[in-house]
């Protein structure tokens, strides 16, 4: 679908109020729903920004440019490669929210498979399906000002990102691993105490270590920790050291691959390949 950028730049009538836009590509809607789940803050936030484009929440749609644009979802169709460029052109600051937008999401599993075979599996008329062979993060197509991880994003972190942008400061989003949050919560380590496979040591913090708190191992829905992205970060992923631990906790090679190939498969895949190479050498 051709995306149209408002030809005449029109600013919000309420001069001085920053405009907020929310767009969606291939995704489950969960990250933009996170914004509507901020029940305590929603109405006060709505008083501080002009919501200019948020189809799920309002029929009132204003053309760009937008001061802050949030994008959920990954790029999976030829039309969306154009759409994301138009969104970028209409946005002062572009923040991607969630694993689909920052890493391609679960639908990036097609990147390791035959997408035509996928289409034949699901659709009666695969010839009607207009899709790319890959699901890619927004940053593979346009410049991104900040990436907020998570499947879904964390409510508090989303508010921090919006608030920081409104205040013109850097969002306070630490890029250490889930282990830090787990220790801070006073959890007993599920791997050490129970031999439960856990991706906490290599997964980006942000969720508050909820899986270990509920007695299960982290399944990596925030993607690799410290992975260098378009917005910075340093590579500190320790997957080569973790894989033997996962195996000693009962996982075989296929289990490990499945464990890493979920909501951030494209990001973890690179780490997995590097770890395997290290293992072989």
């Amino acid at each position: 679908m051709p995306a149209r950028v408002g030809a005449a730049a029109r600013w919000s009538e309420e001069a001085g109020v920053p405009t907020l836009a929310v767009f969606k590509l291939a995704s489950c809607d969960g990250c933009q729903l996170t914004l509507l789940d901020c029940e305590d803050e929603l109405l006060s936030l709505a008083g501080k920004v002009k919501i200019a484009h948020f189809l799920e929440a309002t029929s009132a749609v204003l053309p760009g440019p937008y001061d802050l644009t949030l994008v959920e979802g990954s790029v999976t169709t030829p039309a969306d490669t154009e759409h994301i460029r138009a969104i970028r052109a209409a946005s002062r600051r572009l923040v991607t929210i969630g694993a689909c937008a920052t890493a391609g999401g679960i639908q990036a599993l097609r990147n390791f498979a035959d997408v035509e075979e996928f289409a034949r599996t699901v659709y009666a008329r695969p010839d009607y399906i207009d899709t790319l062979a890959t699901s890619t993060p927004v940053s593979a197509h346009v410049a991104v000002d900040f990436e907020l991880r998570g499947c879904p994003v964390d409510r508090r972190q989303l508010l921090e990102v919006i608030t920081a942008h409104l205040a013109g400061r850097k969002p306070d989003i630490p890029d250490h691993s889930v282990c830090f949050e787990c220790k801070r919560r006073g959890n007993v380590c599920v791997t050490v105490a129970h031999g439960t496979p856990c991706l906490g040591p290599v997964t980006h913090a942000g969720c508050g270590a909820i899986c270990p708190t509920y007695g299960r191992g982290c399944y990596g829905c925030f993607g690799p920790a410290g992975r260098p992205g378009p917005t910075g970060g340093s590579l500190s992923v320790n997957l080569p050291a973790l894989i033997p631990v996962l195996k000693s906790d009962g996982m075989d090679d296929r289990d490990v691959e499945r464990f890493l190939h979920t909501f951030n498969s494209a990001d973890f895949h690179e780490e997995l390949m590097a770890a395997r190479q290290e293992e072989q050498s």
Partner: protein
Amino acid sequence: MTHRGSRTLHVGSLTRVEGEGALHLEVQDNTVTRAQLQIYEPPRFFEAFLRGRAHTEPPDITARVCGICPVAYQMSACAAIEDACGVTVDPRVVALRRLLYCGEWIESQTLHIYLLHAPDFLGCDGAIELARTARGHVERGLRLKQAGNAILDLLGGRAIHPVNVRLGGFHRAPAPAELQTLHARLTHALEDARLTAAWVSGFEFPDTETDADLLALATPGTYAIEGGTPAALRLDGNLSTFPLHTFLDRVREEHLPHSTALYSTLDGRRHLTGSLARFAISGRWLTRPARDAAVAAGLGDPWEGAVCRNPFRSILVRAVEVVYAVTEALRLIETYEPPSRPYVEVPPVVGTGHGATEAPRGLLYHRYALDADGTVTDARLVPPTAQNQGAIEDDLRRTAQAALDAGEPDDAELAALCERAIRNHDPCISCSTHFLDLTVERTRSARTV
């Protein structure tokens, strides 16, 4: 373009629905010749990449089909795989699952009532605009929605894509004292839910009825949520059930040559799932507060078999279902006994399993085939919105035709009415995408950046 006799109407970006879609209407000589709900959500291929996964994984993976109703996906996936493996879970675990599901019903139905649907009846663009004139109402809605989320947060770990659900039950069962913290909040929520039903019953509703067959799960003795037998109520009042394992023989997709969309039909006829269907089929099992709210809202007495076929009045039924879900959550908390183990082991078995539960917007069916080591060899998901599409398009056609017959609506009025007709069904387009054809016309220009 407002040529009265013939026109083509296209709304490129539906708003206040979950996911992205468009509507397309063609009118010739004042007769609606084509009415379509079009989908431009990109395909994500869940059924393809589920193949080769471990049988323990679909609850977490399929949650990602939909951020609005992840619990529905988790529960249908668990039900289907436990069916394949011949495992029955502890009734106390079933009760916890029902409590979790009540949280999703409260959250999702309240979201639809206040943030997506009510603005239609009050002539505004959304709830944030509505809050300028009716802040108290919107605040009550957000508070009620938050009560649903509190259940999801506690039982699931988080409201969207809960982490605590696993095949066979939960990773961790809450202590009774933890659940008690929800009790006071839900007691307040019950009052908010009653006030919600009273509030929406003051809205004005266009007079129209769907002739679709109504399909919902039925469980004698209770308002079916987390399981049951598919039951169909025909227009003539005939009620029949069929075994879940025959679901795909009864609910079939049909590719109509004149249409770009795939339709699901039940025994070859148009059918509708969701609140209207559940109210008609399970209404006699509503709790007294929910039944009283229904009577007060003018829906008739569900204990006496009242049926509502007006999709615009679905907002009333959703409000009644929220009252029900709150009372049911309170009952489940009051009678809670922690299970001896939070889950049962589900060893893999070669075979096929079927599972269906009532997502807020209707019946959600899953089928999985497993091999001996538990690897998924085939997966089918039939979401409610894909089933409802035929009934939604029929509503579009009927509603638009009635407006044309009654007067001379301009394009904007007609478009607004058609959008309302779609929103009545709380369509979840993200969910339904993988069942819908994607050859949408590429000429639309209304999608503004």
